[in-house]
């Protein structure tokens, strides 16, 4: 909402404010946020109107001329000018010496090709009145000389742009802002004095047949008007407030809209057929040509203003082209009405015409202000376009007759305001007298009945309906900065909510573990494109009905596509000879739907399934910085190490890794089948980790191997502390342990983990752990064989072991290895 300082000062005394900045602060602190302050005349201070008395060519330059310029008083000035479009007698804009123009140019006395110049004749571009202009600005012949150009152009004004919140429809006009200021300063705004209309003798009658959707309609019939351009002051003022001038009648309706906040409309009365205006619901498939030249097909649920044959306006939104005021129009019918906010909002959005009128109706207009606004408009039209009021008509539902605001009485306990806002009772700044006087300054009718206030808000304050609304009014009036600061009392013990505890604690710990493992957390937008997902063979998506673009059409079904894109982008913008290390993790929900169409199932159920996932992606060097020979590239075992570290940190129990080649669930198309695993937790498949499939990687032009993991967070959480309890102390052996190392040769493909498990199993109870410490394939062992070095550790809780005991268990283990895996000791 753009507000003119000059206009506002006609409605309310602005002298208590030093200037627009102070006013802006005042308004902002009352909840009417001023976003910009635009001083229109800035840079025009030293520019005045002048007249060229004489023009002659510059002796030294063909393109320059020397003008003798009068400013009305004093001696004429000599000005050198490069423009060609002026002649002696023209009225022009003269920038005097010392002027600093809006484009930054400073004017000083200068000598141009040997001739002194005492100022500059300006173009519209130089004055920033237009983006581009040719030649200098020529003013109308009757322009008085020596006056400020800003005043002459109506630009000696300041425009405040306000952000009006959706509840304050009453502030969408100069009057509304004036009232707001007036209430704060306890001054009553001055409305223009207008002679009331007499509601009789109107050639047409008004019929309200849309019920509550159109509770009031006022009209005025004026004949013998002369449509034409509006005067310059009005054109200029409308323009700086963002309204394009059309003609004097239309401009008058817009003027009253900006002044009083009532949307108004003017019909060409000669085009109204029959003797009755009907406000009714549209008929299905009824056609209505709008003012903007486009014909819309109505649905039967819009309110329309109609004559006896057809709709002539989309009520509250836009007039009809079939009744438009045009240059030849001589008789007009003016409308000021109240329409239902929801109905207008639906019409405006259905036909995508968010007009100024609709904007105000959606927020509600003052139900008691219609007659005044119509009278104001009628007189303004006559002032601008001549003519004579023939008569006026009105129609109101019973709910709108009388004083509307009386029906919105609110009662609350006397000290409610003090207690709710936190002000002490009966003390400054909120004694009972102060409450009363503030509410009265806000134009409320206040009565104290026993221990309660009874308050009736003014008719234009549609937002004041409950006691909390009045609490805000009081707080606004006193100033939020005067509300005390207190710390509330804890009336129950603090503590995490039972249900959220495991989820949040595990989440925090998991992130901490991964950060300690040297991974960077990343957060991606939850959106992705159909085409990107199809690269990964994901098929069922959750799709947005109104996406920003194709790129953001789907909600992610998995975190892997995002990680892959992330790696690609990181590689892409890297310039060095070696690719950067990528070590990322992300923890967030992914989306799927059990049914193909998404629809709310109840007030709280959407049918969309959100599954939290943890994803990891590793690529590049094992160290952040090291010499080339020591750096090493991450591989499967680095990724496995990160995950095992995570499981230890979370206390995760029951994790089983199944090589993807042995998968019973059908593998995974995004993982290298020989270098990836399924992660099972309990009886659930919790996810996968391993190498991103090389064929896919090649297709996507990935520049390095990418090691990835994606785990179901829900499953992981269930099997982790604190769900599984607090870890207990475990004693370590008191007596010395014995080690035996075995160098075995087994067939390639034998699981070293299983070798170790077997050793512990057959070596029970003395063999406690078995650990692989070397794996070798190559020229020292036969083709197709692998050499595996295993260390078995033996101990007894209560005594030292004999050599012979370890020997006999070792023999048993060797035998079992041979039988089960064909393992031989390496010779």
């Amino acid at each position, binding site marked *: 909402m753009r507000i003119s300082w000059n206009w506002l000062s006609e409605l309310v005394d602005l002298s208590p404010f030093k200037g627009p900045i102070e006013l802006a602060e005042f308004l*902002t602190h009352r909840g009417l946020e001023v976003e910009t302050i635009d001083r229109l005349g800035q840079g025009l201070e030293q520019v005045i109107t002048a007249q060229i008395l004489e023009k002659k060519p510059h002796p030294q330059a063909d393109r320059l001329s020397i003008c003798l310029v009068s400013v009305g008083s004093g001696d004429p000035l000599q000005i050198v000018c490069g423009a060609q479009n002026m002649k002696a007698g023209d009225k022009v804009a003269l920038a005097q010496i010392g002027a600093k123009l809006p484009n930054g140019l400073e004017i000083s006395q200068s000598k141009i090709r040997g001739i002194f110049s005492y100022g500059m004749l300006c173009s519209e571009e130089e004055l920033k009145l237009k983006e581009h202009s040719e030649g200098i600005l020529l003013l109308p012949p009757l322009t008085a000389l020596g006056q400020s150009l800003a005043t002459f152009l109506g630009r000696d004004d300041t425009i405040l742009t306000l952000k009006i919140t959706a509840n304050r429809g009453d502030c969408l006009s100069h009057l509304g802002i004036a009232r707001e200021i007036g209430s704060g300063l306890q001054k009553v705004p001055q409305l223009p004095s207008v002679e009331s209309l007499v509601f009789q003798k109107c050639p047409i009658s008004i019929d309200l047949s849309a019920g509550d959707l159109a509770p009031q309609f006022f009209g005025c019939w004026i004949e013998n008007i002369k449509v034409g351009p509006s005067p310059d002051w009005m054109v200029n003022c409308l323009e700086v407030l963002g309204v394009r001038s059309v003609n004097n009648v239309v401009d008058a309706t817009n003027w009253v809209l900006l002044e009083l906040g009532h949307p108004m409309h003017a019909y060409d009365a000669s085009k109204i057929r029959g003797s009755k205006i009907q406000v009714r619901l549209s008929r299905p498939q009824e056609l209505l040509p709008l003012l903007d030249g486009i014909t819309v097909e109505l649905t039967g649920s819009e309110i329309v203003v109609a004559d006896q044959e057809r709709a002539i306006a989309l009520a509250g939104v836009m007039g009809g082209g079939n009744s438009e005021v045009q240059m030849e129009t001589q008789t007009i019918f003016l409308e000021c009405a109240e329409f239902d906010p929801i109905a207008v909002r639906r019409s405006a959005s259905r036909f995508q015409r968010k007009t100024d009128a609709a904007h105000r109706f959606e927020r509600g207009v003052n139900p008691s202000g219609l007659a005044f606004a119509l009278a104001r408009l009628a007189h303004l039209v006559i002032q601008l376009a001549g003519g004579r009021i023939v008569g006026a008509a009105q129609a109101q539902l019973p709910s709108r007759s009388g004083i509307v605001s009386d029906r919105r009485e609110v009662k609350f306990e006397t000290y409610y305001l003090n207690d709710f806002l936190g002000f002490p009772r009966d003390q400054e700044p909120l004694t009972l007298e102060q409450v009363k006087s503030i509410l009265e300054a806000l134009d409320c009718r206040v009565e104290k009945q026993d221990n309660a206030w009874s308050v009736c808000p003014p008719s234009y304050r549609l937002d004041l309906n409950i006691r*909390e609304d009045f609490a805000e009014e009081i707080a606004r009036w006193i100033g939020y900065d005067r509300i005390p600061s207190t*710390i509330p009392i804890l009336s129950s013990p603090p503590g995490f909510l039972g249900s959220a505890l495991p989820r949040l604690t595990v989440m925090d710990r998991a992130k901490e573990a991964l950060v*300690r493992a040297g991974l960077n957390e990343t957060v991606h937008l939850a959106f992705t494109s159909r085409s990107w997902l199809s690269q990964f063979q994901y098929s069922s998506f959750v799709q947005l009905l109104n996406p920003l673009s194709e790129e953001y059409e789907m909600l992610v079904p998995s975190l892997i596509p995002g990680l892959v894109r992330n790696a690609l982008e990181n590689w892409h913008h890297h310039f060095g000879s070696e690719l950067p290390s990528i*070590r990322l993790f992300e923890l967030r929900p992914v989306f799927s739907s059990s049914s193909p169409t998404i629809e709310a199932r109840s007030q709280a159920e959407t049918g969309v399934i959100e599954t939290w996932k943890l994803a990891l992606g590793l690529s590049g060097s094992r160290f952040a910085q090291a010499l080339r020979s020591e750096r090493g590239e991450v591989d499967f075992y680095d990724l496995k190490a990160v995950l095992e570290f995570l499981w230890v940190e979370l206390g995760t129990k029951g994790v089983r890794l199944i090589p993807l080649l042995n998968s019973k669930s059908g593998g995974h198309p995004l993982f290298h089948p020989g270098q990836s695993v399924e992660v099972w937790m309990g009886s659930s498949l919790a996810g996968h980790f391993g190498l991103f499939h090389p064929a896919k990687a090649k297709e996507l032009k990935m520049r390095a191997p990418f090691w990835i993991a994606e785990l179901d967070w829900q499953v992981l959480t269930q099997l982790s502390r604190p769900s599984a309890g607090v870890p207990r102390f475990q004693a370590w052996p008191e007596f010395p342990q014995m080690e035996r190392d075995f160098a075995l040769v087994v067939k390639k493909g034998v699981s070293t983990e299983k070798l170790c498990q077997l050793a512990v199993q057959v070596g029970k109870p003395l063999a406690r752990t078995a650990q692989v410490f070397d794996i070798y394939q190559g020229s020292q062992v036969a083709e197709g064989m692998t050499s595996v070095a295993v260390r078995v550790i033996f101990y007894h809780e209560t005594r030292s072991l004999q050599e012979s005991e370890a020997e006999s268990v070792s023999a048993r283990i060797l035998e079992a290895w041979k039988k089960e895996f064909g393992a031989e000791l390496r010779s």
Partner: protein
Amino acid sequence: MIDILNGIGSKVLKEIGDAIDLTSLEQMRISVLGKRSVLSEVLKGLSSAPSSERPVIGSAANAWKKQIEEALDQRKEFLERALLIEKLQNDRIDVTAPARLHHRGSYHLITQTTRRIIQILSRLGFDVTLGPEVETEYLNFEAVNIPADHPSRDMQDTFFLGPGVVLRTHTSGVQMRSMMAQAWPMRILCPGAVYRCDHDATHSPMFHQLEGLWVDRHVKMSDLKGILEFFAKELFGAETQIRLRPSYFPFVEPGAEVDVSCFQCRVKISDACRVCKGSGWLEILGAGMVHPRLFQVAASTSELFKNSQGLTGFAFGVGIERIAMLLHQVPDLRLLFQGDVRLLSQF
């Protein structure tokens, strides 16, 4: 004979002192103390000496022997140390060569900021709770006093997934879910991703919010102010001031926009300040007293919220990215979601 002995002794001691390496020292030991050594030769002549002199010569010889042995050991130790020093000097490495650095992990700025805020507010007794990102239109809007066809809907451009299903535009739905499932008193923080149709340097279609809700009997607006003041001072520094301005959010009444004094131009507001752009204030959150309509909705759904006489509450919502960008001076919101390791590894 004593003289000969003394002559040999002092000569040998001098030679030992002059020995320049361990090899020549060892040869010296053999030639002085060995069976065929000079000293042995002298002692062989002992039998020809008068018997009265023998003990004197004998003890003199032993004394010399002991003295020479000590000298040899000392010299050996000295030479060995010299050798070691020389060896260590040759073993030197380039200590200025680069360290073998492990990767340094990091929390995303959104997580860091959220954790900081939760840390501060949980000291006041708030609990944390989460909710779904895909929300019903009812809980996201109607239940929090944003009816269909009301202009306040325009405040938040909404992504729809289907009839009645939206991507949540704020985390207020979580507050309603909590009020429908739990008894009061209630003090909760709801962090998480929220979505609005908007994309430029200061708007992302997905961003993060943290909303706080405190519901109890007789909660006052001054309590809201006190809590926010504590929060602002803890987050931005003890000198921080807050400023509440009236504003409108449909789920609160009264509503407020909350500004904090610029932490950058603490002493003197500077027009050139990149953080507050010369205003001295930063708009960081929206807040207000819970609209009674929300309690009515909760009471209509949940037994736990019946008997809500005298129940009041306050709520506030803070944009995580906004705080993160202010504190860390990140110039473009979009950077936070690009996963660029050059950004991630900085914080």
